[in-house]
């Protein structure tokens, strides 16, 4: 279970970083999105993975998931969503203003 989640985070982050290094805004945007997926998943499991338990603590329950990372990841998702939206608008604006989708502006 841990290995599976770790591999998933690794693949998401790796793909994200690869796409971030592209020269066009669209792949960069996708890369940032994938990177933030990886981050969110990582943040989520930083409270450890618990299998077969109620989502919140209960009397006498030995193992229960840590609620704080869930709260953190919710915040992170909201912020990440807002930032991605801003970047989409900015990228579109850059195409209009500079006539290309190269990250340094214009068509290279």
């Amino acid at each position, binding site marked *: 279970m841990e290995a599976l989640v770790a591999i998933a985070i690794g693949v998401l982050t790796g793909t994200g970083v690869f796409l*971030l290094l592209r020269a066009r*805004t669209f792949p*960069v945007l996708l890369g*940032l999105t994938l*990177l*933030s997926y*990886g*981050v*969110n998943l*990582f*943040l989520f499991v*930083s*409270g*450890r993975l618990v299998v077969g338990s109620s989502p919140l603590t209960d009397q006498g329950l030995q193992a229960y998931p*840590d609620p*704080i*990372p869930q709260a*953190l990841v919710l*915040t*992170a998702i909201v*912020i*990440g969503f*807002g*930032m991605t939206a*801003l*970047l989409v608008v*900015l*990228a579109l*604006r*850059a195409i209009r*203003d*500079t006539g290309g989708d190269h*990250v*340094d*502006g214009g068509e290279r």
Partner: protein
Amino acid sequence: MTHLVILPVLLPLVAGSLLLLAARFGDAARRAIGLVATLALLPLAVLLLDRVADGTHLVYALGDWAPPFGIVLVADRLAAVMLLLTAIVALASLVYAGAGDDTRGPQYHALFQFQLLGINGAFLTGDLFNLFVFFEVLLIASYALLLHGLGAQRVGAAMHVVVLNLIGSALFLFAVGTLYAVTGTLNLADLARVMPLLGPDVAPLARSGALLLLGVFALKAALLPLGFWLPRAYAAATGATAALFAVLTKVGVYAILRVYPLVFGPGAGEVANVAAAWVLPVALVTLAFGALGVLAARTLRMSAGWMVVYSVGTLLAAVGLFSEAGYAAAVYYTAHSTLASAALFLVSDLIARQRLVGGDRFEVVDAMPHGAVLGTLFFVTAVTIAGLPPLSGFIGKLFVLEAASAAPGAVVIWSVLLVAALVVIVAVARSGSALFWRTAPATTSAWPPALDRRAVGAIAGLLACVVGLVAWGGVATSYAWETARQLADPAGYVSAVLGADEGAHEQRRSLR
């Protein structure tokens, strides 16, 4: 518990929201609301400074949730002085923006308040995740302010800033996740309490989290090699915005100064002094490169951007000593460089606006209009920022040099600092003579626009504060020393936040 601590966060929030609602009001009304809200920050900051001057930590538990369960805001000497600096620079920048910058795009004043909300929150928070949230608040406002007025050059520069900072945010979350996984807490005081208890099995994880975090703060503070985005972005922003951004890099420096001595200080067991090997060398490289950048810049605004990189390098060289003397020098130098960089951005913008031919490029063109006023403003700013006596730059640099003299490798630090300072003096002297002295016969007969009194007043106000830093130098330096003492002794912070309530932690620890 006093509610004073949260007011510097609440006030811009309320004012910003009000300004959003007041979208249909005229420019004058919005300008007035913004000015009143920003002006009110000044007495608030002074009051806070007065309350914490005796060394108390004012702790404010949001929603009255006891730390470490809830989020706390903590005001101590360092936070209070940063709030005061922010209030001063914000006021000057807003007054300057009133000279016309604020009507070049929609919602300038609302964004300005949200920017202040983020900055003040970042200075006050005592929680690592909350610091992330306030970073995002200030960043998203800064993107919008950077884009204010648009233009292809600005959009291009903003693209880099946004992408880099989004990557920075992702790394921040990785670091936060790692530290949380290891320690089970994100409250800074609680982190400081838990760090020494970490066993050697998890210490490498904590160390990688700490260094990842340092990378993020270095990106915000524009340390090389993560600082190349800064000069172009700041040069592209409108003058008033760039002046406010002079505080933004200091947020990164503040975060380093807040987190590392407290959480990863000498008493942190396995992870003690984790940043010590990195900050100083990187800061020296930044400093040298910043000085070269100033020399190589072809416009005044670009050189002001590099000047920020240079001053961040100097500042972090002092922080990187991780000694009491280093912290004291850093506090004084922060005050100086924030005010001086803000003034330099405003002066550059004013010169670019007044000069009919050539803008702020270092070209031989017509004589500078309003040469006496602009020349005086530029001269005082240049003397300050180049670190020449008798103004605060000189004292700040002396402070840093003195702090470095006791450190190992003092020879290297002194040489880099002094040679870079010389390079900057040469560069600033060259810009001054290129702009003001070397003139060609007039090519245009157009009458230069009249100097805006608000713009001149804003710059003069900032410069008056710089002079104040010298005139009341004794007060300023002794405050810096007291702040340094407070920073070097994390136990005071920890006990102020967590109190004697040890039982609650043990209970929580056993639950995990």
